[in-house]
């Protein structure tokens, strides 16, 4: 079975596993682009990407809360959880791949696709049944070779929302998880939205809505109910060179001009893997140390999602340390590749547990 329509609680858990994988899959590309920017330059772009990346972490947390609420067991340390880039998103969007690359118009183009508005151009494209594309991230059941593919992350969450409602209407006892596993707002907050502990239908649907609104905007409006601009339109500002402001309509921002310096960026090797760096080199050692650190970080976050929510606070500290490691990597020339710099590879050992 792959991602077919949600008809059982097990289906829902599968979707939520996929949701965690999906939310996480966006983070390495965002962080790579973010930290490729020369410090002190591109302030507007830096903040736009940073805010989105932070909110993806919020979404990951919300997905974990939902999965815990319905009695699932988050597992971010299993083999294949971290994709090998370039990768298709695990919700089955098959018309583009996501790369680890420097901040560039191409990268922003990809980010716009990741965050594209929920509505597919036509009803037929909304949910597609088609062969699993090459190198797709093995979602929940990697052996499957066909299933549902969604036009957008928004469509994917719409199915989750539909499934929750459907199961609830069927009288399925959904919220059987241990409430002490929920991550609460004390442990995670940022400017963009609060963590919602999930304990019942209303809070589960609220969590889905928050993710969808922040990402792609469900309603077609560029701002959500809190007056927050959705990710898609945040990124679009970088290509249009202008901020949106209140009252604007899609595609026509009228706020202050926004400056982007595409050249103030380290020339990272795109989709670097560990073998791109010669064994024995300092760069190789640093890239391996980063990967090991990232694996530990995921493991720590996973512990936070599986009964020790307090660990989220030190996990943030680990993430800041990883940030500094990425900074050192991207400023070093890639050995044997003139004009190209090293990059974090996010290669995980088969299992990080």
């Amino acid at each position, binding site marked *: 079975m792959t991602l077919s329509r949600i008809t059982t609680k097990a289906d829902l858990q599968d979707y939520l596993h996929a949701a965690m994988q999906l939310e996480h899959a966006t983070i390495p590309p965002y962080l790579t682009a973010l930290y490729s920017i*020369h*410090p*002190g330059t591109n302030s507007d772009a830096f903040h736009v990407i940073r805010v989105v990346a932070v909110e993806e972490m919020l979404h990951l947390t919300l997905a974990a809360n939902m999965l815990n609420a319905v009695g699932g067991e988050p597992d971010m340390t299993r083999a294949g959880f971290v994709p090998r880039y370039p990768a298709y998103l695990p919700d089955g969007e098959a018309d583009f791949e996501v790369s680890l690359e420097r901040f560039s118009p191409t990268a922003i183009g990809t980010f716009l696709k990741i965050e594209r508005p929920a509505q597919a151009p036509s009803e037929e494209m909304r949910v597609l049944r088609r062969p699993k594309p090459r190198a797709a991230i093995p979602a929940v059941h990697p052996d499957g070779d066909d299933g549902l593919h969604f036009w957008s992350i928004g469509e994917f969450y719409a199915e989750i929302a539909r499934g929750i409602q459907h199961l609830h209407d069927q009288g399925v006892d959904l919220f059987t998880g241990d409430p002490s596993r929920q991550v609460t707002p004390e442990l995670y907050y940022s400017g963009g939205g609060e963590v919602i502990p999930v304990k019942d239908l209303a809070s589960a649907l609220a969590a889905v809505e928050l993710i969808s609104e922040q990402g792609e905007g469900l309603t077609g409006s560029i701002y959500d109910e809190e007056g927050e601009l959705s990710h898609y339109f945040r990124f679009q500002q970088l290509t249009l060179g202008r901020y949106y402001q209140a009252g604007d309509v899609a595609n026509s921002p009228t706020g202050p001009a926004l400056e982007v310096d595409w050249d103030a960026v*380290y020339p990272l090797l795109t989709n670097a893997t560990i073998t791109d760096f010669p064994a024995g080199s*300092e*760069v190789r050692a*640093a890239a391996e140390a980063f990967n090991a650190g990232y694996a530990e970080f995921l493991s720590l976050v996973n512990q936070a999602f599986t009964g020790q929510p307090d660990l989220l*606070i*030190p996990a*943030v*500290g*680990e*993430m*800041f*340390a990883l*940030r*500094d490691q990425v*900074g*050192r*990597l991207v*400023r*070093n*020339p890639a050995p044997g590749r003139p004009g190209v710099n090293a990059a974090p590879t996010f290669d995980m050992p088969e299992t990080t547990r």
Partner: protein
Amino acid sequence: MSAQTRLEPFLAFSSRVTAFTVFELQGTGQAAAYLETVVGVVGEALLGDLLSIDEAIQREADGDAAVRDRLLRARIFSDERLGPVARHIIKLWYLGTWYALPKDWHEVFGSVEDDVTFVVSAAAYAEGLVWPAIGANPPGAKGPGYGTWAMPPKIPAF
């Protein structure tokens, strides 16, 4: 000699006198800016001399750190012309700041009109190596995260 060909010996010398690896030095993103700063104040010729002597010392010491350090002290750090510049290169890496050379150095070895103390750039401040040396962040940059201060410091081995 172009700045690019100077970079390697400059990094090699810098690594020895700072006890940070070339990777860590490059990791600051400041190597080119520092090289430019040094050349801008003391000129190509002096830096070339300093780096040639350093290379000679490496050959002579042949991996013996004690010998190397003795020769560095004898031929560079105690040299009236090279010593102040060598110390300033260390300070550049540790603090991101170029310090104006002493007045008597300028009198003897050539005056540079605009040799003043300055922070090389905002980024250079944040990349000072004194901070990783002590396992801390530069004040006002690279915040280590809530509550990390309650844990023992992670002072990196080298």
